[in-house]
């Protein structure tokens, strides 16, 4: 009889598991690869059927994403030679670049609002979670339930009251307004997730810091925060993903000044027909910040920094 072990798996099992993981990864990656590839296709290649897997890449999509263009007469085109490589690309359609598009601005809005609300959610969430975890708060359980209950309906259900409220407060179409709104939605998640992480940190660390001559607040940020880094990193990723992808409120509450990228990208379709490569280029660029943020924090997600320091 062969011995069976939970940890030592046979090479056949390993091969099957590895294959499954790779197949799953390929399936989930496919749409992303498709979007990335479409961004480099010409409009004709993008809509050809059957779809082209091999194509000659072009930056047309990206040029169209970042510029506004206008059609010109042959005479004008001959008298004014192209000024740069981007201009040259659009000339094949008898067009010239007349200025930048709004994409850069909208993208920057997304960065400001997304990261701003993430920072604020984490800041407030960590303090609240610490208080709930460590201090005796009257009605703590009810308060925690109340905080969570704000998540029990879809946020968009309160869209109309918020729309009216924001109009009266002058928060419509402002960065501050959107940061506050996304923070309000995210904070319940942040408090609950972070409370779980902080509950796991033994109180002895803070008590040791108190004994070592530090104040409670010093003990909090010198001892508790480094231990909670893992939890803070993963909570921040969740908050950023929500704020970054949010579409409905952004459509409703922003327009000229504080519009974020999600409501902007579909409007590209309207400019001079269905410009799929430009939409795909916008979507690709839009994916990058969350990806980079997640990769940057990955080591915190994976590293268990408290291993073994307190014996249990």
């Amino acid at each position, binding site marked *: 009889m062969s011995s069976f072990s939970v940890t030592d798996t046979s090479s056949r099992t390993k091969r099957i598991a590895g294959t499954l993981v790779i197949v799953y990864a390929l399936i989930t990656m496919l749409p992303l690869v498709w979007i990335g590839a479409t961004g480099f296709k010409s409009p004709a290649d993008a809509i050809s059927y059957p779809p082209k897997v091999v194509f000659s890449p072009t930056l047309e999509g990206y040029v169209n994403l970042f510029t506004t263009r206008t059609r010109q007469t042959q005479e004008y085109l001959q008298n004014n030679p192209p000024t740069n490589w981007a201009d040259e690309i659009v000339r094949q359609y008898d067009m010239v670049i007349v200025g930048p598009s709004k994409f850069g601005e909208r993208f920057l809005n997304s960065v400001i609002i997304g990261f701003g609300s993430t920072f604020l959610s984490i800041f407030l969430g960590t303090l609240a979670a610490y208080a709930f975890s460590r201090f005796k708060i009257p009605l703590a359980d009810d308060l925690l339930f109340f905080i969570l209950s704000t998540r029990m309906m879809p946020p968009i259900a309160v869209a109309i009251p918020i729309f009216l409220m924001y109009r009266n407060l002058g928060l419509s179409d402002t960065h501050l307004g959107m940061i506050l709104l996304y923070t309000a939605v995210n904070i319940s998640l942040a408090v609950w997730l972070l409370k779980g992480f902080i509950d796991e940190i033994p109180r002895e660390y803070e*008590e040791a810091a108190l004994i070592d*001559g*530090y104040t409670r607040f010093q003990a909090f940020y010198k001892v508790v925060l480094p231990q909670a880094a893992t939890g803070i990193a993963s909570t921040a990723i969740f908050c950023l993903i929500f704020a970054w992808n949010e579409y409905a409120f952004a459509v409703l509450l922003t327009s000229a000044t504080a519009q974020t990228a999600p409501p902007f990208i579909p409007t590209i379709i309207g400019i001079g027909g269905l410009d799929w490569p430009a939409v795909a280029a916008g979507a690709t660029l839009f994916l990058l910040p969350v990806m980079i943020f997640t990769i940057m924090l990955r080591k915190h997600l994976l590293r268990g920094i408290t291993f073994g320091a307190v*014996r249990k």
Partner: protein
Amino acid sequence: MAEIIIKNIRKQFGDFVAVQESSFTVEDGEFFMLLGPSGCGKTTTLRMIAGLELPTSGEIFLDGEEISQRPPSARDIAFVFQMFALYPHLNVRKNISYPLVSQGMSKSKIKDKVSEVAGILGIEDILNRPVGGLSGGDRQRVALGRAIVREPKAFMMDEPLGALDAEFRERMAEELRALHDRMGATTVYVTHDQLEAMQMGDKIVVMNNAVVEQFGTPREIYDKPATMFVADFIGSPSMNFLDFEGKLAENDTQVELSGTVLNIPALREGAQGKLSYGVRPEHLQFSDKANFRGEVIASEYLGTTQIVTLDTACGMLKARIGSDQKATVGEKVGLNVNSQTVTVFDRSSGQALKSALNEGVVGNG
């Protein structure tokens, strides 16, 4: 270094009384043990001295100053936690220097101090290691280093050996005691292990159910228990209790148990009702002539001694006798009691009756 006076200290968590009005004095340079079963309030008492809990009422004096309501940072008392509580994100050197950093000490001075302490504890070679991978003993030493580096007025230790393997405990206990003797620092040490308390302590407070049962030297606590709890808790096997009912007057020197007359130290107070005759196993000797007789039920061989269980007319007894003596199961033997070591207890109050034996003992009465 300092003297600590605890006066009528009390701690209540909601309706739960963790420590009832307790008083004792830790003298300058003493190695002082707080001993008791888990949940008896010993750790709460220790935490109140350190400032991690504030007493509900009562006073704590450190070097003559009342400190009971001060934050821990304003007390100049170091604390060694049971689980060590080394900061996991810092290496050994930074852990030890942490209390000095909070005092704003210069970097070069901190470096000197840490090296000095590392030398005392023999941990120079692990100073730059992260604390995560250290063995239990090394963690213990680092935790001690963090406590002694600041040269506090007093040390609080909460079962510091509790997390160590048995073989290592004895060595660390010796190291701890040696370190204490070398530094002469006032130390309050919490343990539930009576052997550890007897072995290391200059003085012991025995606590049970939030109450101080007895306060004295290890010898006093062992030889002159103030309550039945102390008599039972200290010593292995514990004291034999032979229950009886009767009436005793001051100056009595004998009691009668189920027809057997036994000697006791002269009583200093009278008592009646449910009483108990307490004698330690090693104070019983086999003697053919004695008229107090019992039947051998079992014998446990322990090397130099053996523990013999006997069935007598007054109840079951354990006797510790030399292993060279013969104890055959089923045999009837006579027992001699070293009567000057006997304590009589009042079972309804649990207190020892005052006698020639236990004069001057500090109990909870």
